[in-house]
């Protein structure tokens, strides 16, 4: 196979990887905030349920979770999800990453001193204003390094979608490698991931610098 053909096939796979990456971030970042609220809820039932959910998400392989999300509806409800492979992948990734992000949010929120809440209360801020104007902007700055870590891990984790035979970059690299009986395509895929993460790290660094204005 010509190098240019291989590169164009891998690049197409990369587009799918980027899609998984962006959609997962889009859904898991807000979802994680909601989950962290549940985790910190004063309602013991809510916080226990959410704690259990986080434990499952962090305690079992993401690869297994992908399989469960895709096949469980068929085995449990007899609903065939064939054709919904991509949405299933996005759901599994989002729900998994939300659990990690939730714990990062929680760490950030708990780092904000009680005095900030009290000052806001005395100055007449309501709860929503206090959270979104006073607490959350400070949380963002605290959590950016941890979020960067997770985001970089996510780039590499997109390769797990191969388990559902999604044609993302790693799946394609494996196929070409098998066909050509060479590890070359896998090495090239590795270089693609590295460049991808280089860009991600650069963007996150810019965001971090921007948030460090005070």
């Amino acid at each position: 196979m010509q190098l240019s053909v291989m590169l164009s096939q891998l690049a197409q796979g990369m587009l799918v990887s980027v899609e998984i990456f962006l959609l997962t971030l889009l859904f898991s970042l807000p979802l994680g905030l909601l989950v962290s609220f549940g985790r910190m809820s004063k309602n013991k039932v809510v916080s226990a349920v959410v704690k259990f959910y986080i434990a499952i998400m962090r305690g079992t392989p993401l690869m297994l979770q992908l399989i469960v999300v895709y096949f469980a509806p068929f085995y449990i409800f007899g609903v065939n999800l064939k054709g919904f492979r991509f949405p299933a992948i996005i759901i599994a990734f989002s729900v998994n990453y939300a659990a990690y992000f939730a714990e990062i949010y929680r760490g950030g929120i708990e780092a904000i001193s009680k005095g900030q809440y009290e000052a806001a209360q005395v100055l007449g801020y309501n709860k929503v204003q206090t959270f979104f104007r006073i607490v959350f902007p400070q949380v963002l700055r605290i959590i950016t390094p941890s979020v960067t870590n997770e985001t970089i891990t996510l780039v590499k984790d997109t390769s797990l979608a191969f388990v559902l035979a999604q044609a993302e970059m790693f799946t394609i690299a494996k196929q070409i490698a098998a066909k050509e009986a060479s590890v070359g395509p896998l090495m090239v895929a590795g270089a693609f991931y590295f460049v991808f993460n280089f860009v991600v790290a650069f963007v996150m660094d810019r965001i971090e610098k921007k948030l460090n204005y005070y």
Partner: protein
Amino acid sequence: MSDKPVLEIKNMRKSFTGNEVLKDISLTVNKGEVVSIIGPSGSGKSTALRCATLLETMDGGSLAYEGNVAASDDGGTMHYADKQELKKIRRCFGLVFQSFNLFPHYSVLRNVTEPVVLSGQADKKEACERAMKLLSRLGLADKADSYPSSLSGGQQQRVSIARALAMQPDILFFDEPTSALDPELTGEVLKVIKDLAAEHMTMVIVTHEMKFAREVSDRIIFMENGVIHSQGTPDELFNSDNDRLNAFIGKLES
């Protein structure tokens, strides 16, 4: 202007897990009065202030601003006013914290203006003018665009005083406003409070600065073990023949 006292606390009680911190505190503050609360650590001074500013809920007694009841007990159970009413009552008072509690992600100016704008008291432009006037009065006009972390403790505390004043409260509480400052910075903050006293701003000040309390107050309250041990004009208290009071004042003055 109402002839009701600005602040009226009757028989305030507060316990923390069985530990009775406030036993029976009654305090009336009239318009233009400056009241200092002194007393040893753990005497309940700060807790009384936190109950009065609705940061803690009291377990008994009553609390009213300008005759508007924030909390009262009818034979044992506390009743707090509804959300709307409490919101109105919160506008009556301001609080200056020991640890400033400025919003670090806001410039000095935004720290002062945003609460004013959010409360609907003034639009952005008017709030800015009000804030700049206050900041220049407190010698901070050139710091309007700075962030709190770049200021000294004394400057931060002056900003937080400006932030409280911008809301135009009827009464301003200070919770040990200089305890986090070194002596030099303490001076600049105390001067600001003295100037406010000269303008007859109604204030309640919890402090360990005896000399300052003596100079600035119309009335001093000495608290110990959750009760008001004694109160009076500075002269009455500082010339008292009460042994406990003399022991406390003497210790701090030496």
